[in-house]
């Protein structure tokens, strides 16, 4: 009897030990699974956010999202603001994110949509077009995501494209501008005494200590202060200096031309290269810019040496020197700005009759050096290419000219290549399925400490006042994320 009891106790202990081992295997298995899933296996996850379900709407801010709407067996919510956001969990090692959205095909003509992924800790998003009916890349020859638009250009891949010169590229990707080295750069004083209206952007080639002196006069046409802020950044967009010139003390709108005010920006020990100078918009005139480099160009200027702005009317000149044909857009908003524009191309002088007010007129310049002379000014001039104010001041800042995909037609007409991952939306009855993709590392996306990526849906046309009543229904959002395994890398 006692032997039986001993045997029973022993077998009970053995069973307990076996169960304990099995129990211990649970955390071992779970930890093993996490190691396998996080570091070894390739995984593809799919998250579906049913926007039309009651309760969680997934999209923020809530004031831009409607309550659930039911229509013909489809539950959805309306987006009533041009920017809405949603988060997606990003596991360790995930490399690619693909976003699909089912939206109602009710966007107006010219309406575009894009999806952005946050790429900085601050508010900054890397956006990809997902809806643009004007963008038809289906019939273009391509290598990867590089589409050849100009039939005279070769079909090239991305790395070859970055080495090509004198080509214009339209893209919604972060292309990364390739700087040129300018051999005839000299650190000598250059004065631009052409009067300009409002904010402007210039590209300079400089090294060492760069000094920029700006003179401004407030027009005081509109109520409010008229300070300017000058930002100087390198070709990668890093800020290297800034400076502010305050208001002239007159915040009225009585059209009293203010006194000359000066501002100096000095950036020391710069590496030789391309720098971007941005002067913020203001209700006034830039009457003089003095820089200690002989290379300074712009893409768009508002020539204002005109009595319309209470300064003497005097002629001004702009210099072009591009290897290909160039289109120049001009527009004026005053009859006094209508004029004959003189064109000097390698000694051959002609005149362009700029005779329409409030409408863009286009001037085509053939390859080579051209000098445009404006006798009356009061004209906004913009080109796909760079131009300068002084003889020999021209330089090409970058190997390629890069413009945003979806730019105005006259700019897109001059494009040689398109770089995009754009996928034409698929029609699904009255709905569209739009999609866009991101690469976590290559696009430098910002994944929060909690392991989430913020995504943004952008409908730019909804920001315009005339479209304030318009809404875009969203049915669902599907997010696919891909994590390569150890052996897939």
């Amino acid at each position, binding site marked *: 009897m006692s032997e039986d009891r001993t045997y029973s106790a022993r077998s009970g202990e053995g069973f307990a030990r076996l169960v*304990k081992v099995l129990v211990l295997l*649970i*955390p071992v298995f*779970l930890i093993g699974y*996490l190691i396998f899933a996080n570091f070894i296996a390739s995984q593809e*996850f799919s998250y579906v956010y049913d926007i039309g379900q009651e309760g969680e709407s997934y999209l923020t801010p809530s004031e831009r999202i409607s309550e659930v709407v039911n229509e013909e067996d489809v539950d959805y919510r309306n987006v009533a603001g041009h920017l809405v956001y949603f988060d997606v969990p990003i*596991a*360790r090692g995930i490399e690619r994110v693909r976003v699909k959205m089912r939206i109602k095909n009710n966007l107006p003509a010219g309406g575009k949509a894009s999806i952005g992924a946050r790429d900085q800790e601050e508010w900054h998003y890397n956006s990809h077009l997902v809806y643009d009916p004007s963008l038809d890349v289906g019939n273009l020859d391509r290598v990867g995501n590089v589409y050849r638009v100009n039939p005279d250009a070769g079909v090239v891949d991305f790395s070859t494209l970055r080495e090509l010169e004198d080509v214009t590229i339209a893209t919604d990707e972060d292309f990364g501008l390739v700087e040129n080295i300018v051999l005839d750069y000299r650190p000598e004083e250059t004065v631009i005494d052409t009067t300009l209206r409002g904010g402007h952007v210039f590209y300079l080639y400089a090294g060492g200590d760069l000094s920029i002196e700006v003179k401004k006069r407030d027009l005081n046409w509109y109520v409010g202060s008229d300070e300017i802020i000058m930002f100087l950044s390198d070709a990668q967009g890093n800020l290297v200096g800034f400076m502010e010139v305050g208001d002239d003390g007159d915040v009225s709108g009585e059209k009293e031309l203010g006194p000359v005010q000066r501002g100096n920006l000095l950036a020391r020990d710069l590496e030789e290269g391309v720098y971007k100078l941005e002067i913020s918009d203001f209700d006034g005139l830039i009457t003089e810019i003095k820089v200690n480099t002989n290379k300074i160009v712009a893409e768009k200027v508002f020539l204002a040496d005109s009595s319309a702005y209470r300064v003497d009317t005097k002629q001004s000149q702009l210099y072009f020197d591009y290897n290909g044909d160039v289109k120049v857009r001009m527009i004026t908003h005053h009859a006094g700005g209508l004029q004959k524009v003189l064109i000097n191309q390698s000694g051959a002088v002609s005149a362009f009759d700029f005779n329409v007010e409030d409408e863009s007129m286009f001037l085509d310049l053939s390859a080579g050096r051209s000098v445009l002379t404006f006798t009356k000014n009061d004209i906004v001039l913009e080109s796909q290419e760079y131009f300068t104010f002084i003889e020999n001041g021209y330089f090409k800042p970058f190997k390629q000219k890069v413009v945003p995909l979806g730019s105005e037609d006259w700019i897109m007409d001059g494009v040689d290549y398109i770089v995009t991952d754009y996928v034409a939306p698929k029609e699904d009855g009255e709905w569209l399925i739009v999609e866009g993709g991101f690469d976590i590392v290559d696009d430098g996306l910002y994944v929060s400490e*909690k392991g989430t990526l913020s995504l943004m849906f952008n409908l730019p046309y909804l920001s315009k006042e005339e479209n304030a009543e318009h809404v875009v229904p969203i049915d669902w959002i599907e997010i696919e994320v891909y994590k390569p395994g150890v052996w897939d890398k």
Partner: protein
Amino acid sequence: MKLFKGLSAEIVSYLFQTLLATYLIFLLLEQILGGLASVYMNLNYFLVIVIVLGVLDVFSEVKVKEKERVKKRDYVFVSVLGIIGLIVIRYKTLELGWLSWAISVIAGVLVVFLGLLVLEDKDG
């Protein structure tokens, strides 16, 4: 009322302790490396299982254990826990600068003191 007695009580208690420790480790890893566990398993479901087992354990027979003598390795274990606590809190409060050091050291010392209190508990 005891739902489980003897061997089954021992198994429930062991299962609860093991899963609780596993859950706490996953929670700690999740705090340090966000998404490490939560992307692949729902920690809330895990917590529900742990709570249910905890409730069952409460209603299980408890074997009266003799108080064991505190060994040197117990003090080492408590010290290691204090150091781990210090490192985790320092990592999570990095952006606070010198304040981060103060908080981490105080937290580490508290962990060690609490550990010693448990070890030295005369009634335990």
